[in-house]
């Protein structure tokens, strides 16, 4: 019985499948040096930035698309992608009134009311729609603390010394195929700098949204927390329904200097394709942070979207006593595939890392955890704790765990725990008997299972994430 019920309740349609009709300024498909020069020119970039991009392009041309992950998909035709698409809005906006009303409607459908967000939650938002930032709020408040929070294009123009100093230092151009591609063609993204000793007074938030059909998105995020500072950064995404696959290859770099702390939270809900596995976003992301002495980076992610996910937010624990954390919930349904996890590279003494990964597979999906814990030769007393749990719904899906451990220092302490469980008929009947419908029962069980991760999210995000889990797994059909 339960299979039928599970099928029924896990078959919820993607709720955010709509297209906003905004006139776009889109470049013809194709990729060559001229395209990169055009992107750079459109953004009025300085020469050093163009040179950097061209160098990355050269590197990329010699690289091969990786095939080691546990996902199968039709490789994108990189010459069929348009590398630049900007909503036609010429001038910079100071207030929401100037934002295209169509765009505001889109945000409303997503349940993101900028006004409400601004007024109630104290969240400053840097919204990226099709690669160009259209609204930035709270800049003033942040400015008083010396915090820089702006689009990457703006940062390149106004804070070139900071961008030049840190871009590519955590994720080098030649790091991997998609990182190299991103370095060559990234169109925009967010930049954030927290000065020494400053505690960022609000959650910094960016909403990404892919809008233009057939447009690849190449976001670049750089977040620098100077000595002793603290910042909590939220990233959330939804994308409209599309039949053709859309490529997304972002790069996120975090720099946590001595004693700094960065909390980076993601809720990802890109179009996963339809129930037959047609369409959906390809999400090939490189996210990495570097921790100096006594610094801490904490990644929290709730991933429910994308047709194919390839993502490993990682920490390089370079400084002594630094701490890396990774909390993840990855949900796959229908024909979604996710190969996600983390890398914890322990280089400094007394470094500590924690990995909590919760995979949920439903439908015909495949969900893999892939994680690497490496303890370097000089990392005395390094410690890691990993817990990787898989929850299966139905018997057509798959869960896989690939933990890699490399310890070059005998003082290392590494713990790894893994469990696989299934939402059982027994659990559902027990809930039913207490008056709880099967849909609510699944939501309850899944939320309980993900609690350790959801608890890491800031309050307002945790609520959204819970909603998302319900939508992707058992939300009312339609």
């Amino acid at each position, binding site marked *: 019985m339960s299979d039928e019920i599970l099928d029924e309740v896990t078959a919820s349609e993607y709720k955010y499948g709509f297209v906003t009709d905004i006139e776009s300024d889109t470049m013809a498909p194709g990729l060559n040096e001229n395209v990169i020069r055009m992107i750079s020119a459109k953004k009025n970039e300085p020469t050093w930035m163009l040179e950097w991009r061209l160098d990355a392009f050269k590197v990329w041309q010699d690289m091969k698309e990786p095939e080691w992950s546990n996902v199968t998909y039709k490789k994108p035709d990189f010459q069929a992608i348009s590398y630049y698409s900007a909503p036609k809005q010429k001038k910079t906006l100071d207030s929401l009134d100037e934002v295209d009303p169509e765009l505001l409607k889109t945000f409303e459908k997503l349940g993101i009311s900028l006004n409400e967000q601004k007024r109630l939650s104290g969240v400053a938002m840097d919204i990226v729609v099709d690669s160009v930032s259209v609204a930035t709020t709270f800049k003033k408040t942040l400015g008083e603390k010396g915090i820089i929070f702006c689009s990457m294009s703006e940062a390149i123009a106004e804070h070139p010394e900071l961008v030049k100093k840190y871009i590519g230092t955590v994720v080098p151009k030649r790091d991997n195929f998609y990182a190299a591609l991103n370095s060559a063609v990234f169109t925009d993204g967010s930049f954030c700098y927290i000065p020494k000793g400053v505690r960022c007074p609000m959650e910094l938030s960016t909403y990404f949204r892919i809008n233009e059909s057939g447009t690849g998105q190449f976001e670049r995020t750089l977040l620098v927390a100077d000595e002793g500072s603290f910042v909590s950064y939220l990233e959330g995404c939804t994308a409209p329904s599309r039949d053709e696959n859309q490529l997304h290859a972002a790069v996120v770099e975090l720099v946590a200097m001595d004693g700094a702390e960065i909390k980076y939270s993601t809720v990802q809900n890109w179009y996963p394709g339809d129930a037959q596995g047609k369409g959906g976003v390809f999400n090939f992301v490189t996210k990495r942070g570097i921790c100096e002495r006594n610094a801490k980076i904490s990644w929290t992610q709730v991933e429910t979207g994308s047709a194919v996910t390839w993502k490993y937010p990682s920490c390089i624990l370079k400084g002594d006593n630094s701490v890396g954390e990774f909390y993840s919930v990855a949900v796959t349904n229908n024909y979604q595939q996710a190969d996600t996890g983390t890398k914890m590279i322990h280089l400094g003494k007394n470094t500590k890392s924690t990995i909590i990964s919760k995979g949920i597979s439903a439908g015909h999906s495949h969900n893999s955890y892939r994680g690497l814990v490496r303890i370097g030769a000089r990392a005395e007393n390094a410690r890691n704790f990993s817990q990787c749990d898989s929850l299966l719904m139905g018997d057509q899906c798959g869960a896989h765990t690939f933990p890699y451990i490399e310890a070059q220092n005998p003082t290392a302490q590494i713990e790894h725990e893994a469990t696989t469980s299934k939402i059982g008929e027994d659990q559902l009947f027990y809930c*039913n008997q*207490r*008056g709880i419908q*099967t849909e609510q029962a699944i939501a309850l*069980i899944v939320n*309980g299972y993900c*609690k350790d991760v959801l608890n890491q999210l800031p309050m307002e995000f945790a609520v959204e994430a819970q909603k998302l889990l319900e939508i992707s797994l058992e939300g009312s059909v339609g």
Partner: protein
Amino acid sequence: MIKIKNLHARVEEKEILKGINLEIKPGEVHAIMGPNGSGKSTLSNVIAGREDYEVTGGSIDFEGADLLDLDPEERAHKGIFLSFQYPIEIPGVTVSNFIKTAINETRKGRGEEPMDAREMLSKMREKSALLEMDKSYLSRSLNEGFSGGEKKRNEIFQMAMLEPKLAILDETDSGLDIDALRIVANGVNKLRNANNAVLVITHYQRLLDHIEPDFVHVLYNGKIVKSGDKNLAIELEAKGYDWIKEENA
């Protein structure tokens, strides 16, 4: 309250219930006893609506409604509660969150408003005290790491919170030590009133020392073969089930 007529049910291909007749009126406590494999748990699961059990004949009327037409949660909304023989674990879901969801979903099913948070809290305090449960109980994951006795107490706590019309206690005494047995029985007794009824399913007479039944039925080979008052239970305890088996051989 509940009228079971000529009920037949099977699990997979095996017929387990072969014509059960039973009527329970408000305010009554009935006990069903019987040897292993006689169909006791099947009966409780069929009343609660578990899908693995296929009803092949007969009827169950609950306060004028045909129970067999309803989903398990609809039966719960009508006031049927099953205290499970083996309560399941739900990691990460606290006892308080679970019971809150159960109460509000039940209310929703009945077309009522959710319970006020303050009322909910004070009710939880009152009922957990009744079951002599430590406060920390409420914030623990449902049944995870609970001892056998704690699980059963938690079942009766949920019963106290949900205030069902008909409570079925499926071997609630198994796995309980004497103190826990007393606490659980005491809890059940305090919840009894003229409008609700209890169906106790047990192997042994000892629970019936604490929860005194008005009627005792012996279930054997899928049928009620003997009914009587509490003295029947005492007789069974003294003589065992063999004489029943012989009588019905």
